[in-house]
């Protein structure tokens, strides 16, 4: 009787030990993955900043205005050609 209990406990012990090893391995693997994703997030944030910077540079008012007037021959309508439509009174 006692021997059986001991055997059972031994089996449980081995089972636990193996589970511990597996979960530790799992934890490390997940941690590495987390690490990689965090690195990626940081990288993407940097890229986002750089893209914003690039967008601002392309959209610089001076540049837009220059293209609008010189290449597209756009201009602000003179006052004489503006018709004001009176808005509905709230």
């Amino acid at each position, binding site marked *: 009787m006692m021997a059986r209990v001991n055997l059972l406990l031994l089996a449980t012990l081995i089972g636990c030990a193996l589970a511990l090893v597996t979960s530790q391995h799992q934890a490390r693997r997940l941690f*590495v993955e987390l690490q990689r994703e965090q690195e990626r997030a940081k990288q993407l944030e940097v890229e986002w*900043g750089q893209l*914003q*910077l690039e967008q*601002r540079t392309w959209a*610089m008012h001076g540049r837009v205005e220059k293209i609008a007037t010189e290449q597209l021959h756009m201009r602000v309508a003179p006052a004489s050609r503006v018709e004001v439509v009176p*808005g509905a009174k709230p």
Partner: protein
Amino acid sequence: MSATAPARVALRLPAWRARLLLLVLLAWFAALAGRAFYLQRLHDDFLQQKGESRYSRVIELSATRGMIVDRNKEPLAISTPVESVAASPADIQITPEQTARLAQLLATSAGEVQRKLADTRREFVYLKRQLPPEQAASVVQLGIKGVFLQREYRRYYPAGDVMAHVIGFTDINDRGQEALELAFDDTLAGRPGSRRVIKDRLGHIIEDVESIQRPENGATLALALDTRLQYLSSRELRKAVAEHRASAGGIVVLDATSGEILAMANLPSYNPNNRGHFDPRRTRNRTATDLFEPGSTLKPFTAAAALEAGAVRPESMIQTAPGQMTIGKRTIHDAHPQGMLTVAEVIQKSSNVGAAKLALALPAETLWKLFSGVGFGAPPESGFPGEVSGRLRAHKSWRPIEQATMSYGHGISVSLLQLARAYTIFATDGTLQPVTLIKRTAPPQPTRVVSAETARAVRAMLELAVQPGGTAPRAQVAGYRVAGKTGTARKIEGKGYAANKYVSAFVGFAPVSAPRLVIAVMIDEPTAGQYYGGAVAAPVFSRVAAEALRLLGVAPDAPITQVQLPSPAVPEIREEV
């Protein structure tokens, strides 16, 4: 013969030998136990530490500097990582060919690289800071032992010279050096953190042990500025400064209802993206840190003080003939004498004698109270570092001549920002708005300076000043009612006034029916012939106001017809200097 007895040699060893051996063995165990105790108990910390240092590392977590954005969240300053090439002279292994190649990649000479690597006791030296990533990558590809990259952040300013004076710049270590970058350095910089990790033999992090200090990224700073208005103000200012060959200029656009600074431009300017030597004449934000004598732009405040005190009414008559007035030993002049003028006409035609008479009819304290009430002589507290408070002397020390000249803006000095802010009392029915460069989240707490009736009366006078018959018909905007006042002042040089150096100014607001914008323009030392505020600064106001009101979608409050300029045959009203 008896059997031979087994040769039992009775080995009689002395008993002490056994005891000695036992003792020795016990001593061994005691020594071992002692040693174990020493290692486990007394020397434990040191050993733990040594052991940990084999696998556990503390890594630094850098904090990124916060962005600066405008009121519409357009980025104005962004930090982005760059690589710096560093070396450890103590353990560098480099061949002469590699040195030459490295120097070539870093755009320096081989001698320079050798000089930096000469001191072999040092463990860290920068070879070149802040390289573009591709260039840094090719340095790594050389594979020189002891040369490595160090990640750093560099700040970029997409708006460049348009915003430079307000935002300022950071130094190579990403610390704020000027303007708002300096004033808000603490909140922008954030706090670097660190954490303890376990690394394996190959240097991979395999476990997070503890966070020693969480890194705090810098906060984003939202400004009150509107990039569109800023660009347009700076463009018009640039045109005017070039056209009138002026030495400098400034413009401030305020939101009349919230006191937010929508635009604040200066010339000459500089590009904050090009690091190197910055000339303080270019980096100074003149609108907040430079003082000038405001000249006639101060007359509306004199009129407001007189109206508020009940000394006059807008239609009260004042004799300005013969165009001069002697006070004590000195005489003040109107270069273009008029006759009898109403108070409204004194402002419209900008008569010095008229303004002086208004001022002298009041006790000095009344005038001083109004001037200090609108913020002259005190810093405007916009959040800009180094803003000046201007000079407004205590009324007890005023002599009559000073009181007279102060009424038309001489003997008192203000910054353009203060002047723009002071005009909010006419734009808001008598309340002074607190100004700010930072976007407001709560409505401001304005302070009442004059009654609504007084403010409206002066507003009507200021509207007259921009119509034909006033000093600034060129300030008109098609489709909108505008109001404002010109100022032309001689510059102070040494002890007196310079003969032909002027500051031309115009401060106004629009639309008059429900003022949205207060715009103050100042052109310093125009040298192309024209120097009257009505000819130099007023057109800038007109163009900025027209486009800004259109951009902000403000409904026109006047019929859209061409503005009426006085015919060339009729001489324009010249204001008094």
